[in-house]
């Protein structure tokens, strides 16, 4: 859940009363753009991506225009531009026009929670405008501070002194930067970054920090961001229909975290526990359809609903239903297994039999009753299965599931399907016999 760029960033900064460059959105009229150029001498044209996309400048995705014609040409070039950064490919949808801010100094500023200091930490340098990683450590101040008192002016002042920042910068930054703590702490952010903040001189030469780019991340476990009234579509790109459906069940009682790994995978693996999730996701690789953590002792109804959604989206293509977790501490195995077994039975009841190999590995409270419920369902549905206790090497259980998947791919699926058809009631024969 990230917001980048000034289109929305400027609005967020206005909440904190932090000065920003003047920004127009993709729907700006030609008159408005012309006015912006007239006021600021030039404009920057930047593509709008959903979520966080870095290194746009380096990729040549930053346009600058001194006249309307160039501005419109840049708009055309960047409006739907594609940007590849690492593994991620993003497609723009719109541009912003940002008034240029003349300045001598550019400042980098961010707040995030540092696991080194185990405290909120300010990162600050007056040599901003470039990648922070490119600077020598002595040119960057990283200062943890007390979250109960917040980012105070003296913290900023001390840091700037230690950096030997030009005197003209200190006072305006000391006045303005602490405001960003309110934004960060009060609206559920996990990181906020302004780079560059351009120090604009007024008529008397006094400098004002003006945010010219913005990036922030929100904590999905913190509802405070909802106070900002950001448009929902900003984050919608993150979720598939399946994930969105599961996410509706997200409460603190029982996990319901999912992520699609491979929409054409063949192992459907409801996984229990963050640890099991890491192990299983790693070992199954692209065979896995989803990566999930449904641990945390979900109640029966929630587990059944989660399983119902999983089956609705993926069971048809799955070769192996692989239910896996370590030896649970408090997740009730009877409740969770019974819920999944019932959901499976109902799914098959509604959509007909599907060839499937069931593999489970688990330990915890009410283990045998839970496995019994799963066994009974597998038996009733006529499906092959193996259920392993916690005394089997979990990685070997994962390997077993993969072998089952391989076998299914190499003709096993058809064999199971044939067995299911044979197992179907010979209804027509019965009827004929009756006649």
């Amino acid at each position, binding site marked *: 859940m990230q917001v980048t760029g000034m289109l929305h960033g400027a609005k967020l900064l206005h909440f904190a009363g932090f000065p920003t460059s003047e920004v127009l959105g993709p729907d700006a009229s030609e008159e408005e753009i012309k006015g912006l150029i007239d006021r600021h001498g030039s404009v920057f044209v930047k593509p709008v991506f959903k979520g966080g996309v870095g290194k746009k400048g380096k990729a040549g995705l930053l346009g600058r225009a001194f006249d309307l014609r160039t501005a419109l040409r840049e708009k055309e070039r960047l409006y739907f531009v594609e940007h590849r950064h690492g593994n991620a490919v993003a497609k723009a949808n719109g541009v912003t026009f940002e008034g240029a801010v003349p300045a001598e100094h550019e400042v980098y500023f961010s707040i995030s*929670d540092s696991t080194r200091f185990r405290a909120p930490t300010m990162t600050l340098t007056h040599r901003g405008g470039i990648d922070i990683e490119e600077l020598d450590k002595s040119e960057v101040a990283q200062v943890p501070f007390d*979250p*109960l008192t917040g980012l105070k002016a003296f913290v900023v002042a001390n840091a700037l002194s230690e950096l030997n920042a030009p005197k003209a910068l200190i006072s305006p930054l000391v006045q303005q930067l602490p405001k960003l703590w309110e934004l960060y702490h009060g609206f559920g952010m996990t990181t906020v970054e302004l780079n560059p903040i351009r120090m604009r001189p007024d008529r008397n030469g006094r400098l004002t920090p003006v945010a010219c780019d913005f990036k922030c991340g929100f904590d999905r476990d913190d509802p405070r961001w909802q106070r900002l009234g950001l448009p929902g579509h900003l984050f919608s790109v993150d979720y598939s229909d399946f994930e969105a459906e599961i996410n509706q069940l997200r409460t603190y009682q029982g996990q319901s975290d999912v992520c699609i790994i491979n929409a054409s995978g063949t192992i459907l693996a409801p996984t229990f526990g963050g640890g099991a999730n890491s192990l299983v996701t790693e070992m199954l690789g692209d065979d896995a359809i989803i990566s999930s953590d449904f641990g945390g002792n979900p109640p029966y109804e929630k587990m059944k609903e989660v399983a119902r959604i999983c089956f609705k989206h993926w069971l048809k293509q799955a070769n192996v239903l692989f239910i896996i977790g370590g030896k649970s501490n408090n997740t009730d195995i009877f409740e969770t297994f019974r819920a999944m077994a019932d959901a499976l039975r109902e799914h098959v009841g509604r959509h007909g039999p599907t060839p499937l190999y069931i593999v489970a590995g688990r330990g915890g409270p009410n283990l045998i009753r839970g496995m019994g419920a799963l066994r009974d369902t597998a*038996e009733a549905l006529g499906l092959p299965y193996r259920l392993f206790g916690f005394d089997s090497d979990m990685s070997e259980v994962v390997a077993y599931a993969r072998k089952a998947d391989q*076998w299914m791919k190499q003709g096993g699926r058809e064999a199971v399907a044939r067995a299911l058809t044979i197992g179907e009631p010979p209804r027509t024969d019965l009827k004929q016999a009756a*006649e």
Partner: protein
Amino acid sequence: MHRHSVGSFKYHVGIGSLDRIATREDRVCVLNILGGESSDVTPVGHAYSGGNVVFGTSPGRSGQVLETPLGGIPVYNNVREGLEAGHRFNCGVVYLPPSGARDGVAELIRVNPDLRKIFIVTEKLSVHDSREIRALGQQNGVDIFGGNSLGVADSYHQVRIGGALGGDDPGEALRPGSIAIFSNSGNFTTTIATYLRMSGWGTTTLISSGKDVYIQYAAPEFAFALANDARSKAAVLYVEPGGYYEQDAHFTKPVVACVVGRWKSRLTRAVGHAGAMAGGDDDAAAKERWFMEKLGVAGLFTPDNPVVSAKGAVVTNIAHIPAALTAVMRENGARPDFAPESSLALKPWFGSSAGLTLPAELDLPVVEAVAPYGEQIARLDRQIGVVLPRQAMKDASGASQMDPKTQVTSLHGVSMLEAARLPMEANLVLALLREPASENDRALVNAAIAAEVNLHGRPELAAAQAAREAGNAPNMVLAAAASLVGPRRAETARRLCRLLTDRFAEARLGSALDEGFDLGRIAPDAELSGLLVGPEPDPRAEALLAALEARGARSVFLRYLLSLDGHPTRDAVLAAIATTLAWGPLMRKRISRLTAESLPWWLQLFGTLLGAALPAAAHGPDSLCGVPNADLLARRTLGEIGCLALLGREGQPDDVFVFETLIGLLLSNGPGTISAQGCKGAVSADGPESPERVHLNKAMIGFLTHAGYTHGGNGYEGIAFLIEQFRDANLADPADPDHGIDLKALADRTVADYARYKSDRKTLGSLDIQKIPGVNHPVFKDKAVNHDPRELWIHDLLAARGDYNAFHAYYRTLVQSLFEAGVSRTVYCVNIDAVIAALLLKMLWRPYRDGSLSGGALETAAFTIFLFARMLGCAADADDHINRGRNMDTRTPASQCRFVA
């Protein structure tokens, strides 16, 4: 304000050694102690730790106690109240929801100066609250564990605090030894302890650190406390990506680090553990590198490439931890704490190949599980039949379901359209045993019901006849008979079913048809034998046995019955039939024992209801409607018997076909129908939580009293309409396609009459215009040409069979004419009611035409066939309700009832 800190940390750490993390002296206060998770987990931890929880809080519940094996733990509204009551504690456990956890921490710190440690179990804490919790703990010198921690445990001290490490039997995982565990995963803390124990390594202190962005008690502090714990010779760390905690940890004792999550760098967001996001220079690869540098190893340990040093090893798979640890400790001259308890080899506790030939690597044999699980599995195997969880079953059913989109109802997953193709006895088996019937099942059912149909000389017949003569509709006639088939009638057979099931399950009978089953394996049971056979021959039992033999029915139970000295009783034969039918579904846990034991009663009821539909005169001492009893028992199918009971004469094969098709179509319309509600209400009122007290005949009466002229009897509307239309058409045989009647002209005339009627009503200003029965449907409308898919299905079925039905053809013409004449805006569908009317009238047309069947009798027949079908569907719903429902669960709360003035 800072308390004394240990070590040279830049922040406060109060715990100097691992053996001080969870001690027998620690006293605990649990916030939200009565919450769902705590109330499960706290009593177990309390008992394991010798009673370490002094009190808990739960606002508004002061005065309550949380029961534990060591007595109740008092509950107060808040921490201050508990302290004022004289309790003292040094550890706080937070089980509050995420929005309240920070306030809980503040409360613990502010009101209790003795506080030293806090354990936060809460998951999904916001980073905002975590950072404030960190600051609160630091300012006040309190060590905090979590959030998202499953607490800590100490195998030596036998203490666990703040969570559920070790699950519901901590002793099973926590055996004292020399290894400390620090894990980002709560589940894996216990799993690793279990793996270690199996390999001969016991544990000292176990810490589930949680894996939020803020890990309050993290690896550096753990490393420090490890160094100072004389009991711990080495440690296992389970580490996920994200955070620099491990980088700053300085270990002085051997460590096996399990670093996972390399693959996670491909994910775009955290799943499960909020802090476990990869991507930066704190990803899994970086962490592997940190540990390799710290431990002085050049690579990862795997069984094939066991890279270790005396300082430790790095693995990426938790299953490799025990081997890596043993290898590392060997470098240090240390041997395992005790002999390995087991191996980590693959051990399926349950398995089946479902009759498939699997490759050897998949076809692993099931092994006996370790104690105590092996015994639990054996106990589970001894449990016969399914036990369904109880819940409120108002408007709900585990038997029938109507799909609101297609309007097609299904019973135990079989749609009514499919059921229409099944013989009636197969639908009976489906309704009660939840599975399709085998040929043997059908033979058993046919004989058992046939033996009940002739009611000659029985009080049921007298009651039914009296009810009929008093002017009752067929539903009440049948109800009168049903009321006499009370629980005492089925008592002995029910008991026999129970005893037979027990004895044969003990003898591990697989298939009830197993010809080779050794009857010598059945333990002698005087009670059972005494009930199965009597000193004198029972003619009814003998007739039924002869019929079963004639039908070639097989049954281990019948074989057993016949092997006994003496003469089988009538109840014994019925119980043997019922147990044979139920055995497979029972063993497959499709049905409960209760359902199996109810089967004889249901069979008696169905037979009685079919018989009671016929007037008393039809029942003779040796025959029913002229069909000899022996013939009924030995040869007739249930469909033929039903047809006989409906028509009062033997049906032709075509009649039986139509009859069975209608039975299938009418089986059920889901739990919302009035008839289903009637039988479910009857069950609910008896109280399904004491299922032996639920009277099945009353459930049938409930259904029968909830059928009537508009629900069940309305099939006649369509018939009456068709009779009206065909009154002067001189139709001789509706099955003959060459009937010589111009259906188009007939339909046009109907449409003209209807258009006139409609116009007249409108002229009179009335909007109360009667509709033509059998056309149009509230769901299947709005297309240019509409079809009821059920009607299409039946039409195609009959067409494929070469059947012609003039009434059905007329209906199809009629909807076209209505459209052509502008009476309907679209071509209406012919609905399923029309199909039923057309099928029924076709069957009864000849006797109606030749005067042997009156109009009244026609209406009775239309109603009766509905009752015959629905008695099966309602029995399925009643049985389901008995198995799943709660007492009085169909009542509507007063708040949802309306008063209408």
